């Protein structure tokens, strides 16, 4: 009789569908398949897909590689902490360290050029949140994630940490310049 009683028809699975249900199931299924095709299709035709290039890494290995790039491509330093500003060549690799509680170093890109940005964390999970563009990527300790980025606008961009990482989390910021 009702949903809280056993079905009165013993062979309920033979009960014919009402037209309203049948029609809706077809419409909903088509929409589900469209959404699935959209996600797959964007990998083929879209320009915003997250790279899956990942390596296991350690603090020491990653710091050494980051330091080498900083030594080679630093153009100036900023703030009283003397944070290096790194300007890598187009197509080049650059390393960004997330740690309690800053992003190091500052990076300078050129608009329309493509770069390989290597991300990792030295300690806890962090969240790479590029603002005001609003691109958000999880940064996990022990894993080096290589993201290929092509800035399409110039200006000053902030990296906000958006994964909770302790008492100083809300002051963990970094910067990317695009010329």
């Amino acid at each position: 009789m009702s949903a809280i009683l056993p079905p009165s028809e013993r062979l309920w699975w033979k009960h014919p569908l009402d037209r309203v249900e049948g029609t809706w199931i077809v419409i909903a299924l088509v929409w589900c398949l469209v959404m699935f095709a959209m996600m797959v299709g964007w990998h083929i035709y879209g320009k915003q897909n997250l790279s899956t290039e990942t390596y296991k890494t350690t603090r020491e290995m990653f710091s050494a590689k980051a330091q080498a790039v900083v030594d080679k491509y630093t153009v100036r330093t900023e703030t009283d902490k003397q944070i290096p500003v790194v300007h890598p060549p187009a197509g080049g690799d650059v390393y960004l360290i997330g740690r309690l509680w800053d992003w190091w170093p500052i990076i300078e890109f050129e608009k329309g050029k493509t770069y390989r940005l290597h991300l990792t964390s030295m300690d806890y999970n962090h969240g790479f949140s590029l603002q005001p563009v609003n691109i958000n990527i999880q940064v996990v300790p022990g894993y080096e994630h290589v993201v290929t980025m092509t800035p399409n606008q110039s200006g000053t961009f902030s990296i906000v940490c958006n994964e909770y990482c302790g008492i100083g989390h809300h002051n963990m910021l970094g910067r990317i310049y695009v010329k």
Partner: protein
Amino acid sequence: MADITTYRTCPRSGLQFEANAEKLMLANAVVAVVFLLIGGILAIGVVLTRWPSVHWLQADDFYMVLTAHGIDMLIFWIIFFEVAVLYFCSSTLLRCRLATPKVAWLAFALMLIGAVTNNIAVFQGSSSVMMTSYVPMMATPAFYLGLILFAVGALIACFVFFGTLVVAKRDKTYQGSVPLVTFGAITAAIIAVFTIASGAIILIPTFLMSIGIIKEVDALVYRTIWWAFGHSSQQINVSAHIAIWYAAAAIAFGAKPMSERVSRGAFLLYILFLQLASAHHLLADPGLSTGWKVVNTSYFMYFAVLASMIHGLTIPGAIEVAQRAKGYNNGLFEWLRKAPWGNPTFSGVLIALIGFGFLGGISGVMMGTEQLNMIIHNTIYVPGHFHATVVIGTTLSFMALTYFLIPVLFKREMINPGLARLQPYLFGLSMYFFVLVMMGAGTLGVPRRHWDMSFSGAAMAYEWPGAAYLMMGLVGIAGIAAIVGGAIYIYITVGSLLWGKRLDDGAFSAKPTPFPLTPASTALHGTGSAGFAAPGTFVLALVFLTAFVLYYFINWKYLSQVWGLS
């Protein structure tokens, strides 16, 4: 049968309660409400701190309060209540005794000890690791131990539920198939077993790490397995509250499912595909392949979304059919206009259903689309989404069910029914607004779990757009309104239990009274228009689909404008 027990037939609902099951339902529901109360008090701290112009708590207190709020609401309030729902859907709906009541009390004790242990650990202040407790950030051992004890208790409760199904089958208290609502509860319990097992697999090694026996739990492995627990536990809620929606439609309207086959088929899709959604949390992570992400995040071609869209049609559809059969057959929407809007069980469920679909469902698919996730991951859009699913969907449904249970299970007359009529509207609609402004702020990039959006004192501070501050202020106002709505629910529930007029128990018997044989149902058709039994519901479903499609492509447009990524 060794257990001596009695069966009470409620004179107000005709439902039959077995004595042991009744006490256990009562105990689990009361503890659930206590945790809702604690979680609600904590919500004041969260909301008033994230409201930028108030910014009430200090950072360490804020993170502690946020951790406790998440765990008390998402885990303890909901799962305690769900255990009561499982016992209701087995023992009460199948009219049989509860299997192994002593073991069920053990489950209850373990859950309670675990919950209290975990809360003490959090309030001592050195376990502010958020509900997700991502390693290598460590809480104290008691934090994990509490969760593990709670999980073991909940797992035992699931097996008591399964055992009760066996008892009913063996004692032949029903004929044919279990009711649809029980089928929904079985879906929830199956998902719960998977969920709790995943939790144990990851929390036990993490506990061992916290006491120094294991050296390291890999951060990415932790995230992957933890989400098989963390997200799946929300899938238990989805199955449970959808079962409650079907129950409410049956209770308030005598509505029968439009077709058992479709509704049960949709629950079966949940069992098969719903858990894949734990991938939603890992879309922005390194180390997982694109194929893995696409297949899992789409619940294998969105088959679980299909199931939810089916339930979203069949529940109001069943109500429409029942209302039309009663003569409310004019036009498309007379059935809805003449619905009992003053009955909080009905209004609560309807507000939950619409909010869950439009706000929770649509936003969930956005976040769960692999590429769109990049413009949403870890922003405050995420808590916006899950407050739509878990608060508007699950919590409001549980509140609506409570209003039905106060006279039936608690045997009390509800105090202040006028306030109860108002409560689903105040709570539900302020939550609608709350999640909308949260998602708005998230679209501008405002992060979740963040103490100070002004970054005061930071060397390279970022200035959010003014609209982000405005929306976070509105989050604060709407949040306070919702907390008032929650407080009214607790006042009515606890007040009725303490001071409500005691109602008649009804007849007791030593043996269960089986279901009378029901005559074969009459055909569903005969009302409606154009061969559609529920044309009004179909129109509403098309409105939903239009909103869904538009918002989906708006987000793709937004994504296509951000930096190139490959």
